[in-house]
């Protein structure tokens, strides 16, 4: 939109928007950080140890792992998805329509793209930090087997961004939040439950397996598991990465359009 601006200036404006989102979060988090740290421990204890005990009795190991170790990486991926999603629908519609604080932002040197970049980079930062905590947590439960586990925070951030980018784009163009609950119920809940999150894809009926592979979260979960256990083939990993990166790119392209239309047309 502003061809005469050098990339350095554009970058500086994106950073200002990042900073705004970050300080908004620190102003409003109200103890959510404590629950972020506690949650993985509670989750892994109840599901991993509790349900894991039953699984152990009936089927033994799952893909060579205890049930606890099997679900631990998927916890990281699903949490990243949830964080990406929760930051992207209602908060964005509020910023463009209810409070119009993004309108205030584009009355400053920032452009709609700067606001978009700031928002998404903040979501990425936040999920990265949370994923570090989760990586530590699942390691404490013994669910990491490889140095590849060090990539888990990056995977978490990528998964969050892969969901956040298209959802921000969608919300920036939305007229009301009526569809948000539907998206949540009919896209996220099924995705959360059926992305080989809690049981391996081999245990799905054969006809449903390709469907499961259509879920973006499936690829996030698979990546997280591959990293935690240090296993997985290069082609498979490339496909998982490509799906997530494609979602980011589509989201950026779409978000640029909806943000611009919403804020400056």
């Amino acid at each position, binding site marked *: *939109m*502003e*061809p*005469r*601006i050098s990339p350095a*200036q554009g970058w*500086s*404006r994106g950073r*200002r*928007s990042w*900073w*705004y989102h970050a*300080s*908004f979060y620190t*102003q*409003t988090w109200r103890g959510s950080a404590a629950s972020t740290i506690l949650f993985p421990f509670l989750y892994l204890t109840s599901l991993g140890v509790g349900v894991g005990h039953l699984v152990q009795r009936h089927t033994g190991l799952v893909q060579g792992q205890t049930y606890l170790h099997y679900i631990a990486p998927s916890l990281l991926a699903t949490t990243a998805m949830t964080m990406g999603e929760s930051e992207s629908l209602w908060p964005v519609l509020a910023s463009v329509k209810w*409070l*119009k*604080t993004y*309108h*205030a*932002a*584009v*009355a*400053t*040197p*920032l*452009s709609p793209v700067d606001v978009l970049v700031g928002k998404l980079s903040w979501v990425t930062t936040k999920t990265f930090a949370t994923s570090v905590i989760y990586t530590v947590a699942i390691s404490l439960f013994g669910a990491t087997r490889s140095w590849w586990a060090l990539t888990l925070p990056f995977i978490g951030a990528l998964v969050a961004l892969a969901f956040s980018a298209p959802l921000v784009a969608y919300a920036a163009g939305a007229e009301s939040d009526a569809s948000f609950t539907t998206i949540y119920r009919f896209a996220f809940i099924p995705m959360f439950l059926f992305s080989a999150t809690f049981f391996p894809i081999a245990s799905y009926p054969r006809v449903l397996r390709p469907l499961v592979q259509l879920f973006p979260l499936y690829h996030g979960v698979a990546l997280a598991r591959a990293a935690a256990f240090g296993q997985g083939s290069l082609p498979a990993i490339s496909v998982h990465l490509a799906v997530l990166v494609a979602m980011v790119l589509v989201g950026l392209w779409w978000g640029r359009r909806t943000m611009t239309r919403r*804020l*400056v*047309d």
Partner: protein
Amino acid sequence: MALAYQATRGCRALWLDSAVPEKNNSSLARTKGTPTSVPPILEAHQLTKRFGDFDAVKGIDLSIDRGESFGFLGPNGAGKTSTMRMISAVSRPSSGTLRIFGLDPTTSGPEIRARLGVVPQEDTLELELSVRKNLEMFARYFDLPRRVARERASELLAFAQLSEREHDKVDNLSGGMKRRLTIARALINRPDLLILDEPTTGLDPQARHLLWERLYRLKRDGVTLIITTHYMDEAEQLCDRLVVMDHGTIVAEGAPRALIERHSTREVLELRFSVDDHAQFDNLFSDVAERVEVLPDRILLYVDHGDAALQKVHDLGLTPTSALVRRSSLEDVFLRLTGRTLVE
């Protein structure tokens, strides 16, 4: 051109500092009459905004000088906000040319916006955050260092008379306080040009007067103001010069008093009768007044001497339930030019 702007930017730094004795602002005085020395702060030619196949702004021409208070007066839907958004370098003109500080907003948007203060029609505040945080965080959009942001926030809180409420959540403020905070926020970058879209709509008279007083101060300190309003008294009070807008076009332009003199008579006699519809009086007063406007609830007689005209009305054997003589206002100008009242 850039140099001329910089020279005045230096003086501006003082305009919020109440501790500093009144600075001689003569260098910021209006430059009307000497247009060759300083270029206008804003210039538009055939500026148009189209939404789909609807033209909200239909090719308007504007030239606003540094230090001037310029008004847009017009009813709902006249195209005021659409114009403000274009001259805030936010919304892109559909056609026509626009120069702000001599720069083209389609290519120099960020540079222009860095020097603007914008008070949008709706407050766009962070309701969940404190009054002070709203200012400090906004300052970061202009890349002001944290310390500067804190200092300016304190100054502006005092200016907006919100110092006592600085730690309150914005959600808990009254409408007038939110409006003052929005204005304070627009000043955080010490703008050369402040654009206010209906700054006082929806406020009670007391809150409006307080806001006017604050705007006077800015004006006195040399800030160029562009104000939209559909209150004629606001336009008369605040604007050196204004345009009357209707249906996306400018129907008149000039200083408030000059407009009134040009388009209306010295006085207006307002008559009310105890009838349901005043239309029946349509032709009765042609001998009494230069011009007659029959509104649903009253009749306006445009005359030079209201009392004499009222006497003539009585002589006609008519007894209005109420009769009021007043000076002509911009409302009358608007009625004259558009055939409609400003505030329905």
